[in-house]
């Protein structure tokens, strides 16, 4: 059983559309990270959020950490083909613990 559940599992959209990916848990996390993994490559960190209710923006990507620190979302505005990839959320249960719990990921395909 995954500690972090991501939805949807797969998402295919047209270039220019918006999308939202969700990461949910019944557990509280001290921090949450989002990674993007492109085919044939390792994951690359996009953002780290640590405060409940925190919103961070990275160009067309908006990340939100839930008030209760049990969930997070990633919203992409006007998706581009370069946004195609596997999006992974990873949560840290304790501030002083290096261990991360990863979700299974959402595969996003942006069609030209």
């Amino acid at each position, binding site marked *: 059983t995954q500690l*972090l559940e991501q939805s949807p599992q797969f998402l295919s959209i047209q270039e220019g559309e918006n999308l939202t990916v969700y990461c949910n848990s019944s557990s509280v996390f001290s921090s949450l990270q989002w990674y993007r993994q492109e085919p044939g490559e390792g994951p690359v960190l996009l953002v780290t959020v640590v405060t409940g209710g925190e919103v961070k923006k990275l160009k067309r990507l908006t990340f939100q950490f839930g008030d209760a620190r049990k969930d997070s979302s990633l919203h992409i505005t006007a998706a581009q083909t370069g946004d195609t990839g596997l999006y992974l959320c990873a949560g840290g249960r304790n501030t002083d*613990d*290096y261990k*991360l719990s990863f979700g*299974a*990921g959402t595969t996003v395909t942006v069609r030209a």
Partner: protein
Amino acid sequence: DVKVTQSSRYLVKRTGEKVFLECVQDMDHENMFWYRQDPGLGLRLIYFSYDVKMKEKGDIPEGYSVSREKKERFSLILESASTNQTSMYLCASSLYWGRATDTQYFGPGTRLTVL
């Protein structure tokens, strides 16, 4: 830029063989990790090393061992490969110890198939 390299992108081995996966990072990072990535399961931590010759078991260490003789190099060893170890193996490194908020830098992965 941090660079994490893995010795092979693809590897095919037979059941019972001893398998070595090598990982090298060039940024003098203290910490190195080995994960396996399987569809529907995400990344699962196999082993973590926070210094030369120092290691900690992750969530799924059974059937694996590790070696870190030099700071920049972290090896994953499958003593006797089995078909259920067919997977994508990812190595990562990070600068600080004991912080889940630290950035982990990943290598490109080794896709291992055990026949």
